[in-house]
């Protein structure tokens, strides 16, 4: 017994290393799992508060760009409104009441923490459960482009798994040909303005500057612009094409985001859960 104790004490550096390193790795694995139970992250009260305070200065410095993007959006909305007002109402048309039954509603939120340099980037926003945000909701940027999915939600804060994350996969289509693909980021690329669309069937013709939009199959509404094709010759090993895409939205200056609430999200999830796992 005494010898064992001397042995342990002599190489204590190594044994402590094993113990603490194992704890670290277990935490990582737990955090990678879909259901995370430990909340030492930015939805945590203390950390969230710090980020919210830090963000005040940054918010002020970015007022100019935010103003610009808002005025652009205003102009766009006004144009749409004008088009709606000038409908010739003497014609008989069947009116579908879309106002009282919208499929998607947008919740605006402010970004209080963002990163673009890591392999798995997470964004934190200042809205949470109290504002009706739930995990897996889609998040888009106010200008153009997709941002990601809601990951964890606390009472007043939420984290978003940004597109710049290894687990982020968004279903997209080519606007021209409706060919389906999957938008992913970061395979041999850490440039936050570029992403890849994988698994486009080979028989479709893709040309440069084609627009990529969301397909509407994931939680995103259909037709949200994502980016333009910049390279069609990305080598793959299989029967599908991959293309390089320049993203429309700039993750480095992201200040406000819209969280998309899909009316039938719960229903769809329940229905799809009934499918047998293949």
């Amino acid at each position, binding site marked *: 017994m005494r010898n064992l104790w001397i042995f342990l004490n002599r190489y*204590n550096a190594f044994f402590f*290393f094993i113990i*603490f390193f194992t704890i670290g790795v277990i935490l*990582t*694995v737990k955090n990678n799992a879909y259901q995370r139970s430990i909340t030492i992250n930015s939805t945590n009260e203390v950390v969230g508060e710090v980020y919210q305070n830090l963000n005040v200065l940054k918010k002020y410095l970015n007022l100019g760009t935010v103003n610009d993007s808002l005025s652009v959006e205003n102009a766009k909305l006004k144009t749409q409104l004008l088009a709606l007002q000038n409908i010739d109402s003497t014609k008989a048309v069947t009116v579908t009441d879309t106002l009282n039954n919208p499929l998607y509603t947008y919740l605006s939120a402010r970004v209080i923490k963002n990163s673009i340099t*890591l*392999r798995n980037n997470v964004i934190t926003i200042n809205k949470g459960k109290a504002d009706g945000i739930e995990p897996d909701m889609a998040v888009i940027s106010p200008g153009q482009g997709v941002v990601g999915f809601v990951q964890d939600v606390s009472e007043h804060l939420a984290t978003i798994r940004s597109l710049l994350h290894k687990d982020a996969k968004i279903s997209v289509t080519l606007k021209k040909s409706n060919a389906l693909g999957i938008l992913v980021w970061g395979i041999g690329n850490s440039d936050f303005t570029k992403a890849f669309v994988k698994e486009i069937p080979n028989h479709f013709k893709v040309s440069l500057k084609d627009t990529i939009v969301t397909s509407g199959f994931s939680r995103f509404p259909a037709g949200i612009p994502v980016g333009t094709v910049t390279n069609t010759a990305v080598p793959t090993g299989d029967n599908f094409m991959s293309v390089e895409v320049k993203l429309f939205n700039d993750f480095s200056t992201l200040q406000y985001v819209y969280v998309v609430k899909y009316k039938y999200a719960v229903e769809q999830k329940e229905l799809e859960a009934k499918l047998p796992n293949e």
Partner: protein
Amino acid sequence: MATPFVYIIFLLLIPFGTPNLLLYLIAFATGLTLDAFYDTLGVHTAACVALAFVRILFISVTMNRDGFDEPEPTLGNMGFKWFIIYALLCTLSHHLVLFILETFRLAEFSYTLMRCFFSVGFTLFSVVLIEFIFYNRKAR
């Protein structure tokens, strides 16, 4: 592409006499704090603990165990050559664990390694730079 993690200088400069258990606890707490703010639970924690292990090994190999001449492993106390090797080994172990755990898949292994080595260069440069700014050579 290359991200410096200069905070490890805090772990590099902990005084020589610190007990191993205390050193590991400090490394663990540092990593956990970093993880909370980076939203990467466990990654920095494991990396910091790996750094503490390499630190203990390196110091036990290069210095005599009883009675340290200097209080802290700084550039001014230990000289350029010793410090650069010490910092390189510690940074390398920390970043290797950090990047591999962060990516957590083998498919991008070579790319991860490349990112890791660039970051090691960047961090090392920053650490040495900071050490030169607070350089005070002890009169012997």
